[in-house]
């Protein structure tokens, strides 16, 4: 599209002040500011991959009818570009939610009503130096997910994150175990077939786009929390790690203050890896000793012995709730 030629044609036909300016995609905003200071107004912005073209008018010369005609004239040119796919529109919306959480879904995708519930997976690549793109991974996901089209959506958000929205019927039931099992399967698929490091996070089933947006934000925050506090956890669900999510959202100064406050209550010695593992498993299982022992594949008495040793070393009994909270906070803030 020759935008300059178009601007010249309009100026010639109407005799009204209109200006076409071309620049690179990163320069158009400062250029527009400068032109606005000189009394020009942007009537239309045309963009391609790397260039931008600004249609500017002197607003005093253009009455309402002329402006409407001008907009009508320029709009077909705009729509002659390939329309954004639903995935692209959703990607822009999801990305925008991180800065403006309440933004409603774009009108063009609001008609996306689903009769059955969906499940959302946030896939995160953990290695920035790898050279592949999400585009190359999409065929793998399409082969993997049964009945991928048109009921499932693969939405690359940016080079690091990809969203996968699949109908609940693909997963099975809406039980947490099933969705988590799927997350593990996806992580394994990507790790084995792309041979790279991925984190896969999953949320509860939802039936509206607004809920999808809310779940996405939760998963995004969970991802930040895991990067900081549990970098080795590669699969998790939005209902996991509430304390880590809370801690990750604290400003650094507040987190430092929390650590100082905890240390002032009691100075704790460094714990061994085995002790930390026992505590973290105990906390993950709501202080249930038998379940923790089962998870750690050790006898209940062995676990009790280890917990006694921790009490001996720290003066805090991890089976006692207030002490457990203090130990958990100490582990969380002390090691990060």
């Amino acid at each position, binding site marked *: 599209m020759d935008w300059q030629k178009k601007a010249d044609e309009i100026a010639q036909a109407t005799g009204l002040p209109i200006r076409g300016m071309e620049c690179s995609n990163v320069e158009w905003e400062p250029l527009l500011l400068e032109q606005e200071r000189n009394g020009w107004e942007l009537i239309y912005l045309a963009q391609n991959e790397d260039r931008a073209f600004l249609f500017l008018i002197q607003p005093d010369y253009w009455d309402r009818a002329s402006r409407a005609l001008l907009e009508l004239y320029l709009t077909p040119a705009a729509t002659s570009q390939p329309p954004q796919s639903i995935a692209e529109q959703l990607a822009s919306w999801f990305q925008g939610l991180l800065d403006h959480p309440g933004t409603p879904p774009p009108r063009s995708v609001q008609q996306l009503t689903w009769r059955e519930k969906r499940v959302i997976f946030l896939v995160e690549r953990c290695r920035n130096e790898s050279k592949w793109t999400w585009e190359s991974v999409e065929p793998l996901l399409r082969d993997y997910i049964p009945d991928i089209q048109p009921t499932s959506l693969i939405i690359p958000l940016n080079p690091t994150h990809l969203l996968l929205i699949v109908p609940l019927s693909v997963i*099975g039931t809406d039980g947490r175990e099933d969705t988590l099992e799927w997350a593990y399967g996806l*992580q394994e698929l990507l790790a084995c077939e792309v*041979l790279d*490091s991925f984190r896969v996070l999953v949320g509860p089933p939802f039936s509206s786009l607004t809920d999808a947006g809310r779940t996405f934000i939760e998963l995004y925050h969970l991802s930040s929390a895991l990067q900081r506090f549990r970098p080795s956890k590669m699969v998790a669900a939005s209902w996991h790690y509430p304390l880590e999510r809370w801690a990750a959202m604290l400003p650094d100064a507040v987190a430092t203050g929390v650590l100082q406050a905890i240390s002032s209550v009691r100075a704790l010695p460094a714990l061994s890896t085995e002790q930390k593992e026992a505590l973290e498993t105990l906390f993950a299982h709501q202080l249930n000793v038998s379940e923790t022992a089962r998870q750690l594949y050790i006898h209940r008495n062995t676990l009790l012995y280890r917990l006694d040793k921790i009490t001996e070393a720290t003066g805090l009994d991890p089976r006692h709730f207030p002490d457990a909270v203090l130990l958990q906070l100490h582990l969380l803030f002390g090691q990060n």
Partner: protein
Amino acid sequence: MAKVILNHVYKRYANQVVAVDDFHLEIHDQEFLVLVGPSGCGKSTTLRMIAGLEEISEGELYIGDRLVNDVAPKDRDIAMVFQSYALYPHMNVYENMAFGLKLRKFSKSEIEQRIQEAARILDIAHLLDRKPKALSGGQRQRVALGRAIVREPQVFLMDEPLSNLDAKLRVQMRTEILKLHQRLNTTVIYVTHDQTEAMTMGDRIVVMKDGLIQQVATPSDIYNHPVNQFVASFIGSPSMNFLEGNLLEKDGHVIFQIDAVEIRFPEDKAKVLRDRGYVNKPVIFGIRPEDMYSEPSFLEANPFPSTLVAEIDVVENMGSELYIYFHNIGGTQMVARVDARDALKPRMSIQLGLDLSKCHVFDRETQVAVF
């Protein structure tokens, strides 16, 4: 099947942390090599560099005769088996194993043939129609292995594949993996922090610490001839006992002295210590728990000064043997593994004979083994 060569390989991170420092090793074709060491020693980073999951900061990596530094992970002809044994939940066992082959456009007959062969090797032929939910932990782990096997890669990379299994299953799968290696005759590089796994599985073991290779040797060499105190302490359970004391020349004998205890070295070891100038110097004396004996026959054959008198703190009965813990020699916690027929109790004193043909001495400053 292929050899793997790591030629002076380094991994440095942006914060100047050196995770792997001058790793230089040729892993032989069909070898089962185990990388072992404590958390943060660089073993997983090394494996991930071989897989292509971490970039190599410096050095060269060859798989077969091909330099693969810049080859994408999926093009390196490797298969990786991870800690988790997650399967694809909506596919049955057959489909789980076939999926990777279908992606690579193998013919149906080839897929069928490879899966049947892998199923036979892993003894899971009767499970091929089952969904993952209907499998036990051990069966899932076998299917996960099967998925790697059917690809027939040049090299298997295994990153702590057994650490998520319970103790009994871990022992069972250890044997299964070894049998598998014997049948497949493929190069396997296996990472573990478990020294028992390392000792029982590896043709050779690489012990790592702080990003550096400490020792590369067969399991028996690592156990019997550790090159430094770290390797000596890391391999063996219970760990080797260490005593810090001085070497003296007394009445024509070389003596290790700690407090009032004197241990006289046999002449062949005394000669080494003299020749290397360790007499009248502080050293670390090392002896494994099983090289201390309470049996009268041993004590009669090895009279003073190769004995210690232990005042027992704790006795652990392991069924066939007893572990006795004591700390009356220089205040150092020590453990001896003795015959379970001895009726030993805490607060008893017991004379222990030391098999000095198997003792170790380490330089106090460098912790390097003298022998």
